[in-house]
């Protein structure tokens, strides 16, 4: 059955849409609070399903040019066969399990923090998994031709046959960077000349371990409820210096480190900045 986009919306809203619906243009259903599912064998140019709070399933067989199902919290599983000519975007959705035959030029699961399983015949040019913090392994049949973005993931392994270029916030990285951040060192950060690469290395290593490895120039020291505080600086070639405040928690005694802007010059200024207050306004009555 061939229908216009407006007719398709009307049929879907009244739950009278037949299977094999062929829509003659882009089908924009973004924000449709009433939408729970779509008919089988749906065909359209663009399918926009952003912010549909109750959408819990896509058709078992779906073909379109563009698919966007961002911020769809009830969409927890993807299966069946999905073929998208250009971009398929599931960023910020509630996906937990993907077991689908999925083809797209560009595919994004960015920010799908509940995603734990990515299996099935997935074949794409580029794949964005940034922020998929619960995902530990990728399916063996994953086929990524160009780039795989992995910032904010905690993967324990990569499929042996994967040939895609790995990216972390857009910067090319190797498998060791992704899988073994504990093997990175502060010295590596200092020896990295490219500014973007140095920044992501530092982010991956963590300011605390970096300072433990390389030390730093102490700009200021004083005491608060937790004990001694230090403000330290490490200069970088061609980039702003790292300035961080090292404090001790008054309850646990544990040390922690927070990076602050490079213009900060005292511990008091630094801690006030972390609270988004002026140094004169930061006078805690009680800290724990």
């Amino acid at each position, binding site marked *: 059955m061939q229908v216009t986009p407006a007719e398709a919306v009307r049929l879907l809203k009244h739950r009278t849409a037949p299977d094999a619906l062929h829509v003659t243009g882009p089908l924009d259903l973004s924000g449709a609070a009433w939408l729970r599912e779509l008919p089988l064998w749906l065909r359209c140019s663009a399918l926009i399903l952003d912010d549909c709070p109750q959408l819990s399933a896509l058709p078992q067989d779906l073909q379109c040019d563009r698919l966007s199902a961002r911020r769809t919290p009830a969409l927890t599983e993807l299966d069946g066969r999905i073929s998208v000519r250009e971009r398929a975007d599931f960023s910020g959705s509630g996906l937990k399990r993907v077991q689908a035959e999925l083809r797209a030029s560009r595919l994004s699961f960015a920010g799908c923090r509940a995603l734990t399983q990515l299996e099935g015949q997935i074949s794409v040019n580029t794949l964005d998994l940034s922020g998929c913090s619960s995902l530990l392994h990728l399916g063996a049949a994953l086929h990524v031709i160009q780039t795989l973005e992995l910032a904010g993931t905690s993967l324990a392994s990569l499929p042996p046959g994967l040939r895609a270029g790995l990216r972390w916030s857009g910067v090319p990285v190797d498998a060791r960077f992704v899988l073994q951040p504990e093997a990175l060192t502060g010295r590596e950060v200092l020896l990295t000349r490219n500014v973007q690469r140095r920044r992501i290395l530092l982010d991956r290593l963590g300011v605390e371990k970096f300072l433990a490895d390389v030390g730093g120039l102490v700009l200021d020291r004083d005491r608060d409820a937790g004990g001694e505080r230090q403000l330290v600086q490490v200069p970088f070639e061609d980039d*702003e210096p790292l300035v961080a405040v090292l404090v001790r928690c008054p309850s*646990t005694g544990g040390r922690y480190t927070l990076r*602050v802007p490079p213009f900060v010059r005292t511990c008091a200024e630094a801690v006030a900045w*972390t609270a988004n*207050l002026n140094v004169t306004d930061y006078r*805690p*009555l*009680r*800290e*724990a």
Partner: protein
Amino acid sequence: MSQPLYRHGDVFLQAVQLPNTRSLRPTGHLTLALGEVTGHSHRLSAPDSAVLYASSGPDQYLHVQSAQATLIHEEHAPIDLPQGWYRVWQQREYIPGSVRTVLD
């Protein structure tokens, strides 16, 4: 003189005058912040002692309705909060080009 300020780990609370309640909506819980890694939380110990509101911005507002409410966490010493309204916000840290919120 500024209003009393409290720090509970990476969460700050500051006593405020009655905020514009039209822009607030009750959250239905009393968890001020939840640690993503540990699952530990900054929360009030007694369910009927207060109401927590979300605002249109990043801040939350806490209305302590009983004479006193106790803020607790698995790793931090408790803090007693007197009756009144509080603005609640998270500690931040700097990364070049942006600022991110700390979640312990």
